[in-house]
């Protein structure tokens, strides 16, 4: 392990990301939870930047830190936001949660060790290459995702209309 600038930056960003997540779990107010989550999203964008994935990093900030966090904050503000009580969690519930989390972690680690990761010295992916691969190689999954989003949008409008009547 070499102590260079990249390592220090990675260390700080990881601590920020994990710290945000821990704060999110421990905070009592919903508002603080949402803000900690936004902080974690932001730190992850920093890690992407460190990996030379500038486009992904910027999109992470635009979508997650900018849009999704603010959507959550809106949801909290428009509903009951003075809620501070926490329901007691049973031991059985806790056990099941930990089990599921460990299974998930195991699955993720398995996938990571199975994937042949590229070694050092690979050129960073340009936006152009990314666009070509999305619109040529992966065009069908992309279009399917778009249709899914459109369906969700139409559904949201129908639900909002129903409430109006």
């Amino acid at each position, binding site marked *: 392990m070499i102590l260079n600038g990249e390592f220090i930056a990675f260390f700080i960003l990881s601590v920020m990301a994990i710290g945000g997540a821990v704060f999110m779990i421990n905070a009592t107010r919903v508002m603080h939870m949402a*803000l900690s989550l936004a902080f974690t999203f932001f730190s992850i964008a920093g890690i992407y930047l460190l990996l030379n994935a500038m486009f992904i990093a*910027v999109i992470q*900030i*635009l979508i997650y830190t*900018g*849009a999704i966090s603010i959507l959550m904050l809106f949801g909290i*503000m428009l509903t009951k936001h003075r809620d501070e009580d926490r329901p007691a969690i049973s031991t059985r519930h806790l056990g099941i949660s930990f089990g599921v989390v460990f299974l998930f972690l195991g699955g993720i680690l398995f996938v990571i060790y199975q994937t042949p990761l590229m070694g050092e010295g690979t050129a960073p992916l340009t936006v*152009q290459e990314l666009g070509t691969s999305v619109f040529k190689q992966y065009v069908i999954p992309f279009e399917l995702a778009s249709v899914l989003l459109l369906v969700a949008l139409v559904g949201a409008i129908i639900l909002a209309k129903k409430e109006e009547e």
Partner: protein
Amino acid sequence: MNPVLVMGPILLLFVVLGFVTMAILFERKVIGWIQMRPGPNRVGPWGILQTVADVLKLLIKEDIIPSKADKPLFKLAPAIAFIPAFAVLAVIPFTESLQFSQFAVGILYYLAVSSITIIGILMGGWASNNKYALLGAMRSAAQMISYEIPLVMSVVGIILSVGSLNLVEIVEAQKQVWFIFPQFLGFAVFFIASLSELNRTPFDLPEAESELVAGYHVEYTGFRFAFFMLSEYVYVFAMASLTTVLFLGGWNAPFGLTMIPGIVWFVLKFLLIVFSLFWIRATMPRVRVDQLMEFAWKVLLPVALFNILLTAVLQEVPYLDFLYRL
């Protein structure tokens, strides 16, 4: 470490602070002139020290934090609102040599980082524990999110023409024709949306002093209030620079007048944009809330989408494609 790299941002901060001081005075003078009154004229010759006096007053004021406020968030909010305002300046190329980074996705970086300010505003409004502040913050956030979408869409035409998200390459592509001519629709949408992003009249609903007291910063005094105001004016600086870079050709000289250095051209175009902002503020009334949202989603967004389609089609038209494929 390169000393220029360390000192550059600090110098830029002082330039920006100087700009903010003068811009506030200039704004009051211009509006006074349009409304046929003298404007500030007591502090210093021609009222030139008025803003300095105002800022000094804010700095020595008592720092009041409401007892029912969420204190950590209340203190943190002005910083979160201000830091992105300054951070976006990192990607703006002022001239060929005067630029801080050649970030490959510069324009997206600007749009992404500037959206973090909304979190600061929401935080400030919520932490104040005041219904006017909360209302103002929500209005502000709703407005900024709605207008961010046409803002992003209106520059897609430029990105299509240049084939790059790098702001330096976008300026270099405007050597022959500035994008304000082939992308006029895009410019109109961008300018209106940027007015709204800056919370300036006719879209100054978040502040709306006559109905909402002052919006999200009612409970703020002293230097915390000054920070919110500062971030607003730093965004004026950033947005005027971005408009210059995207649509007015950046440091490129018009009519081949290259003996005048690029920075002078940049400053002239930049000042033109800043003046237009003040001019619009002095002439336009404020829009209603329902009109505001309808305008963003039903007028600006379709026009921006049409502009993308138009650019894509015109790229294939012979004799015209030189304007759209650079």
